[in-house]
Each structure stands twice: as structure tokens, then as C-alpha cells.
């Protein structure tokens, strides 16, 4: 039903819940992988697909909130970390607030209706799909950026800031012609068809413009 074949990871220590939710999610055509503990989940080789993590707040080894923190760390390091839908047997306000602040998609108290769960899972998968998209674009840009020579990386901020070649040459102590050559190389290596595109790329890479 989905072209990119999304997957739902389900972590709950109660086999009854695992069985029921796994059946429910399968019935709507989602791939499901079930785990009894956080450790099992972390060891699992994840497929390259949009994903969602349905996580029980109370786990025997590492608690749901702790796993959430670990995943946030991975995400910062640029790795895949699926958005989280928390489920809990008895949700207390403090835990739910912490979970939502840390970026959880939804916080569901057992027993919950199928619509609540499915909507949350779909939202999470959609979010992950976008995030994955962004991550792959960024990765592409970074791959291009790595091709630049050190001198070209010095010149790039001046180009995207709209400096003329003459002024850039004066600032960096090079001739206007040399700067023009660098500029052409940058455009080619980065795969930018226009200056406007190069500016957007530099923005995504987080390259700061130099002060004049």
C-alpha cells in the first residue's frame, strides 16, 4: 500500500500487547517488528525505510524515556532514529510532559482506540519520511561539499553572500581572475545550476556569510 514500505517498531514487555498491536498494524498493511526490551530494539539492524517506534513507557531494562534520550543522541549524530509514539499502562502527567517535550509524536494511555494509534503511527511515518528526505538531501550536499578544495571553501561564503569577484580577491589576497576560476569550480562541484541554488545549498549546509 505504501511504495516505500514503511515499518513500525514495537517495543513492549507484555507479549499480549505485542501480539495484539502487531496484528492490528499488520491488518492495515504495515510492516511490524516487535521487541520485548530496549536492548533488543537497539541491536536490531534497521531496514532503510520510513519508520515509527511504538514504545511502552515501562520497560524492564531501560525505560521508554531513557530510550528516547538515546535515540535523540543518535539523531543529532545524523543517524536514523524513528519518531516515537508512547504507549503506557498508567500514564502520569510528569512522564507524558517529558516525553512530549523530548519530541514524541503522541502519548497514548492503554487501552486506546485503533484510530488514535493508527493516526499517530501514520503521522510519525510521514514525519520520518520527510526527515529521511531531508537527511538524504543534506548527505548529498555534504558529499558535494567535501569535493571542494580548502581555497574553494574559503571562497564559497563570499560567493553566496553576493560579493563581486574583485572585492573577494582583495579580501583574500588573490586576483579577480583566480577568484572567477574558483567560483566556476564551486558551481560545478556543488552541482548548482544558478547562484540562487548555491545560496540555498549553503544555507542548508549552515555556512555562515563573512562580514564585510
Amino acid at each position: 500500500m505504501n511504495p516505500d514500505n514503511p515499518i513500525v517498531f514495537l517495543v513492549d514487555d507484555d507479549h499480549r500487547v505485542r501480539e495484539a498491536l502487531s496484528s492490528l498494524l499488520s491488518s492495515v498493511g504495515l510492516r511490524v517488528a516487535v521487541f520485548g526490551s530496549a536492548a533488543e530494539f537497539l541491536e536490531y539492524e534497521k531496514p532503510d525505510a520510513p519508520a515509527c517506534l511504538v514504545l511502552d513507557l515501562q520497560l524492564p531494562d531501560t525505560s521508554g524515556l531513557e530510550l528516547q534520550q538515546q535515540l535523540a543522541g543518535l539523531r543529532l549524530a545524523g543517524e536514523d532514529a524513528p519518531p516515537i509514539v508512547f504507549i503506557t499502562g498508567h500514564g502520569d502527567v510528569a512522564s507524558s510532559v517529558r516525553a512530549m517535550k523530548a519530541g514524541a509524536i503522541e502519548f497514548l494511555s492503554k487501552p486506546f482506540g485503533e484510530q488514535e494509534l493508527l493516526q499517530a503511527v501514520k503521522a510519525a511515518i510521514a514525519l520520518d519520511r520527510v526527515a529521511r528526505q531531508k537527511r538524504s538531501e543534506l548527505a548529498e550536499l555534504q558529499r558535494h561539499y567535501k569535493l571542494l578544495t580548502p581555497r574553494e571553501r574559503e571562497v564559497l561564503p563570499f560567493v553566496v553572500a553576493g560579493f563581486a569577484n574583485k572585492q573577494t580577491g582583495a579580501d583574500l589576497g588573490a586576483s579577480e581572475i583566480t577568484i572567477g576560476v574558483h567560483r566556476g569550480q564551486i558551481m560545478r562541484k556543488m552541482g548548482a545550476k544558478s547562484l540562487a541554488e548555491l545560496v540555498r545549498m549553503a544555507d542548508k549546509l549552515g555556512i555562515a556569510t563573512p562580514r564585510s
Partner: protein
Amino acid sequence: MVLDSQLRRYSLAAISCGLALAVSWPFDSFASIYFLAVLVSSLHGGKGPGLLSVALSAVAYNYFWLPPQIHLSERFSYFRFAFFLGTTLAIVGLIEAKRHAEEARRRIALRVQKSESYLSEAEGLGHAGSWACTPHLAYTYFSAEMYPILGFPAGDAPPSAGDIGKRFAPEEWLRVRETFEAARREKIAWDGEFAIILPNGSGRAVRMVGHPVLGASGEVAEFVGTAIDVTEQRHARTALQQAFDEIKKSEDQLRTIIETIPGLVWCAAPEGEFNYLNRRMLEYTGTTLDVLGQLGWINFLYADDRAPVLAAWSHAVATGRTYEIQCRLRRSDGIYQWFHVLGQAARDNAGAITRWYGLLIDIDDRKNIEEALYGSEARLSRATQTATVGEFAASIAHEINQPLAAVVANGHACLRWLSAQPPGLAKAHEAAERIVRDGKEAGEVVRRIRALFKRAALEKIELDMNEVIGEVLRLLSGEAARRHVAVETDLAKNLASVTGDRVQLQQVIFNLLLNGIEAMDPVLDRPRKLFIRSNQHSPEAVLVEIRDCGVGLKDPEKVFEAFFTTKEDGMGMGLAICRSIIDAHHGRLWASPGQDAGAIFSFTLPAQLTTAP
């Protein structure tokens, strides 16, 4: 003078006869000189020398004078000789008889003298004197001791009645005279004690005893009697009386104390037979010592208490150890009240028991309060149960929500599989089966919780402790997981069953496990492990042990005290109630420190000896 030596006496007889012969020879003398010799010999020598002198005289008479004058050849001479012999023998006999009489009189006189001196001595020692007087108080005899007794110079004639009267106070003297008068009139003996005053002013007490001697006419001829100085005796008697009074007084005080102390006091012989009960005890039981003995004191006790009391008392009597027991004693109105009975053996210097002293202290009020307390403790127990429910409502909600969530999700899944194209019938079937299974489990959880908090009366049934532990573990497994506590079990197979109340024992295990789990909250540097173990402690007892590796106990006994708590929001009743429950099951609950860390809570329960095959 009687000569002592036998020889001298006989010599005297021979010499006197010789002298008589010598005197009569030249003078051709007469027989009378021999009479004199016989007389002298007999008088001074006695019977033997007298007879010797008779014999010698007879010989001398015959041979030295008779021829030519008188000799035995003449008829007449025989007659004279016989006369002479008879006369001399008569002299000897008469003198002997007189000597005997004198001897006897002398001995009597000696005896009288001796006994008089004894009497005098005795009178002196006993301050007793003897006297005689006429019926009109004229003293005719005073023994030596009478003088010092009445304060008169010794040796005088008995003082006159007037002088004696001066020794008495006037009214006392009147009493003496009246006594005499009455004795004379009635002709009776009398005995009285009188106070006298000696000339030196000192007062003495004299006891006078007299009895009448009746004359031929039948009237009193005289009185004879004794007077005894009894001043010392009287002093001694007064002192004795005082001492006796003192003893009696302190004895009275002691008795008053014993009679009035708010306890029932008893004494028993060393063999255990009661021989004294104080007034309170008699009043309480409404009986007497005799009745108690006849009916048997044991029958005054509450029927259930008789056997243990009898056993304890027999043991005490047999061993001499202190006797102590609590029992119910019947009051006179038939109501039984609780008493604390104490008995202590009194021993002599040799250590043998001389008596048992006992005290019964009324503890009825205390017992009633205890029972009321027990009731309130039971209510409190329910209160803490409720508090526990509050604390763990969330945990229990988790237990129910878990299967419920599964049921709901399975329901949805089932519907979706059925409505899929084509329908996933097998999957739908599986989901439906899981709905049934999880629904039942949710019901089971609810049933267990209801059982745990049911306000049912104690219901003792045969129980398998492993089963009870299992039920509680199922309830607590969520809580343990939530707090990251791994629960390990080591349950003995073939455990004997126990008799008890399922809910109460579940509550004990629930409390102990929960305490263990909570004790490990601060533990971060080691795995949080909780062990629960059951085993056959002995053929008579089943042991359950719960071991945590938490913060441990400072004082393993103090934790069982009511209102002792280390928890901020605890009531401190949990362990106190656990102990009361185990006590009520005749078991024992205790705490000890764990080997490395943490604490071990253990309890034993009496095992059912007749195990099912």
C-alpha cells in the same frame, strides 16, 4: 563415844574383863564388877565386844573364883552362873537396842538438817520463803528467805502482822487481809500476787500461796504457804508481753496489708496444698478455704485454663521454680475475670521449700483493652490496606490496563482482518482467541485484587505457600519491572501445606516484597534483585524468606514497631501488622541483615503434619 576400829573395840572388851578379873581376884570379889566390864564393853564397843566380854566374864567367873567359893560342881552354882550369864546378855541386848535407836535418831536428824539446808538454799535461789500463821494473821513460822523478801532483818522472830502490813500500801494490805479472811471462811487455798514496798523504797512483786490446815474441830487451825519474789518474772513477763504486743501489732499490720492489697493472696504447703487465702480472695471467690479444698481450687478456673494452670503449678511444685501464668478465675457471681498468677517458694536455710506464697493480680481490664486493641489493630490493618491500595492504584491499573489494551487492539485487528479483501480469516480467528484469553486474564487480575482487599473474616484453610507467593508475585510483577527490580524465586517442591487465611498471608508477602522493592530504589551501583525463597524449615515448619539488596536495616527489631517508618509517606504500620498476622498464625516473623547488603525478612508457619498423599 563408839570406837571405830574393830580391834580396838574387842581389845576394850578384853581389857575391861581383865581389869574386872584383876580387881575381883585380891578382893575375892563379887560378880557385879563383871557386869560393869560387860556394860562398858557393850556401851562403847557394841554388840560383838559385849558378847566377848560376856564370854570372858563367864570363863573368869568359873575358873578363877568358883573353887573354893562357887564352882560348877554345885547345883546352886549352876543356877548362879546361869543367872549371871542371863543378866550380862540382857545388858548387852538392852544397850544394843538403845544404840540402834540413837543411831537412827542421829541419821534422821542429819537428814532433816541436810534437807533444811537444801530448802534454805532453794528458797534463797528462788526468792521463795515459807511461812505459817494462825487464822488471825499471827505468823508462827518464817523461813530464812522470808526476811529478805519482806525486808526484815534476818533471824528475828517472825514479825507481827502490823509490821508486815507496813510493807504494803493500805489498799493492798486490805486485799491481803480480805484474801485471808475469805480463805479462812471458805477453808480454801489461795494464791495471789501483791505489791510491796521495801523500807529502802523499792517496789517488789510477791506472789503468796497459802492453804489452810484444818484442826480437829474442822475449823482452820493455821495457814501454811510460800511467798515468792516474782519481781523479775513480772518484769520479764511485762517485757515479753510488750514484745508479744509489738509482734502482734506488726502482724496485724501485715495482715491488714495482705487483706487490703488489691490482689488475691494465697499460701500453700510445699506439696502445693493451699493453707491460706486472704480476705479479698475469699470474697472474690465467695467461698472459704475449706470449701475450696473440698471442691478443688482448679474447678474455680475457666474450663479452658485448667489444664495449662495445673501443668504449670505441678511443674513449679516439682521444680521449686517461680510459678507464673495467666488464667480466668470465677467470681462469686459466676463471672470469670483474668488474673496474672505469681507464686514464689520460700525456703529455709538448707534450701528446702517451706511454703509457697502467691499473688493473683487482676488484669481483666488490661486483657479487655488488649482485645479492644486487637480489634482496632485489625481495623487499622484494613486502613493500611486501603492506603496501600491508594499508593498502588496506579500499579494495579497497569495490571488491568495491560490485558485490556490487548483486548481492544485485538478487537480492532479482528475486525480489520474480517473486512479485508480477501478476508484474513485465520488472522481474525487468532485475534479473537487472544481477546478471549486476555479478557479472562483481566478478570483474573480483578478477582485477585478483590480477594486481596476483601473485608472477610479470618478464614483458615489449607494453603500451599508457593501458590500464595505466586499469586502475589503476579500482582507485583509490574511494579517490580517499573522499578527495575528482577525477582528471583526459589520455591521448594513438595512443600507441606499450612493452615491460614489466604488474604492475610498474601498481604504479608505483598508487604514484604513491596518493602524489598522500595528498599532498592536508591540502589544504582548494582543490580536490583529480590529473592523469594520457600522451604521446609523443619518437619513442623514452613519457611518463607524474602531477601533484597537494598539499603538494609539499622535495627532489625525496631522495624516491627508500630509507627516506625523510613518512608516519607509511610504509616509505619505495614511490618507491625505483618507480625501480628504471622503471630495470629502461630508463626514467627523476623528480620536480619543481608550478607553483603540489604535485608532478609523471614517467617515460619506451622506445617500441616498430615500432608495429602
